[in-house]
């Protein structure tokens, strides 16, 4: 790893996916690969702060690495606030400061069935998970989402692994999602599988409850507001299983389901 892992790289491409509502666009951002000599692991994240951002946006923003090859690093984001709105205004050739790869990563057992549980933008790390897995036939993706599938890189995943999705159209749908998640977690426990999950906290909480109930190995990727991404600001903590604060950026973002407390 280089002495200075904060670099300015150019935007290779930036494209809204599908036809999301204005102000809620889901965007694929491709950047020049930052040249990490030691590579990266699936589940890790980067901090991104465009060079053009003035001081009214102080922090970089954390994003899961969606995928990468020797030349390009891809992230996905949904426009939800000031930072992501301004990110969408980037154009090809613009410079962004990027530091990473940061944090912990998902396990990738090649000889166990793996259930990937994605909620909304939580689908992002699973693009890289599928691409880099030696036995994709062992993988299954369950995807809970609100915008239509065309807004996500779902087609690319469904061409490679077994997939299942539920669209949440009305409040009652959440019960269907919870029931299906619980059934799937139980099923993968019975066949000594691993569950890996990424999505909103209530989604992860459902998975954690099921994993603990059935004694299933599960790894959960948390997201949180961060100022630094490197363990200095202590702004992104969550409770560990003993009730102590631990940093999502450096102890996570990927935690074993038994290691954290999402109920508080």
């Amino acid at each position, binding site marked *: 790893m280089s*002495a200075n892992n904060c670099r300015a790289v150019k935007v290779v491409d930036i494209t809204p996916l599908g036809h999301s509502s204005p102000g809620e666009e889901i965007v694929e951002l491709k950047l020049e690969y930052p040249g990490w000599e030691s590579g990266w692991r699936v589940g890790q994240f980067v901090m991104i702060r465009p060079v053009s951002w003035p001081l009214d*946006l102080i922090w*970089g923003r954390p994003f899961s690495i969606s995928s990468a090859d020797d030349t390009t690093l891809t992230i996905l984001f949904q426009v939800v606030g000031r930072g992501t709105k301004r990110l969408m205004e980037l154009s090809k050739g613009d410079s962004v400061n990027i530091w990473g790869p940061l944090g912990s990563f998902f396990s990738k057992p090649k000889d166990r069935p793996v259930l990937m549980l994605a909620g909304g933008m939580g689908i992002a790390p699973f693009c890289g998970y599928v691409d880099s897995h030696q036995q994709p036939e062992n993988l299954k993706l369950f995807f809970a989402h609100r915008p239509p599938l065309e807004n996500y890189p779902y087609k690319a995943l469904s061409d490679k692994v077994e997939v299942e999705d539920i669209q949440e159209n009305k409040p009652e749908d959440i019960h269907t999602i919870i029931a299906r998640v619980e059934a799937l977690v139980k099923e993968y426990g019975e066949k000594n599988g691993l569950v890996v999950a990424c999505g909103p906290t209530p989604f992860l909480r459902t998975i954690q409850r099921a994993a603990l109930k059935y004694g299933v190995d599960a790894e959960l990727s948390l997201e949180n*507001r961060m*100022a630094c991404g490197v363990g*200095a600001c*202590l*702004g992104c903590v969550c409770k560990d299983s003993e009730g102590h604060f631990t940093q999502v950026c450096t102890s996570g973002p990927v935690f074993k389901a038994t290691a954290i407390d999402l109920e508080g």
Partner: protein
Amino acid sequence: MDMSVDFAGLKLKNPILTASGTFGSGLEFKRFGDLESLGGIIVKGLSLKPREGNPMPRIAETPCGMLNAIGIQNPGVEDFLTKKLPKLPWKTLPVLVNLYATDAAEFGELAAVLAGEEGVAALEVNVSCPNVKEGGIAFGQDPRQITKVAEAVKKNAGNKPVIIKLSPNVTDIATCARAAEDGGADGISLINTLSGMAVDIERRTPRLANVIGGLSGPAVKPVALRCVYQAVNAVKIPVMGLGGIATAEDAAEFLLVGATAVQIGTANFLRPDTAFKIVEELPKVLARVNAKSLDEFRGSLILPK
């Protein structure tokens, strides 16, 4: 240009340090630059016992700044001394420890723990944290308490320089600076964060669980510069300036009003290599403004007649 400075007997290779609370234990930033190129690092505030800190959310982004109410979460002084300090290149990098306690006696006790630690170059005493319910800012707003804390720490600090970090949330910063000097402090640093608040009109809630937090970042720079200017003119002991410094030009402004050294805080979040870049850039900025030396430039502000 020779960038070395002597701050209250502390030999620094340059006047750029990193501010407590924004640079972790220092180890977090090893991958972003050469720690030993810095004038020094000031580690996250330590207390005698571990502290859990405040509930989430603890941080909020504000126009040109940020609010925080971390609440001095830290693993306790012993944990730092045994697990973190040995991994830092303290023989060539001055490591200053920031102290937090709830009364003068406890500050003294903490100083005594650190007095014999070879790897600790100096003590910075936080009498000004606005984010904890007990103590904290109450010290920083009462000059008699500032003197009392300075005396307690100085008495127990052995030969280590004692720097009192002052709050800007006072009516007269010069009085507070003099109070630190009266207590025997070897230097002062300022400013800590400004007390602030942010709310969410959609949810009708405060943005911080603690409701009120400390404002830092470029937004506070004019206040910090004014406080440093007034403090420099109030005391004979050296002053470290901090508050909103994000570029070498910002650092030069603090030196111009008389600061002996400066600290880089929230700007470490803009880019994690900001402090390293300021170390590189400051000599160029001083050369550009025709400074003959750091000593000649320091405090050379020309006031209107």
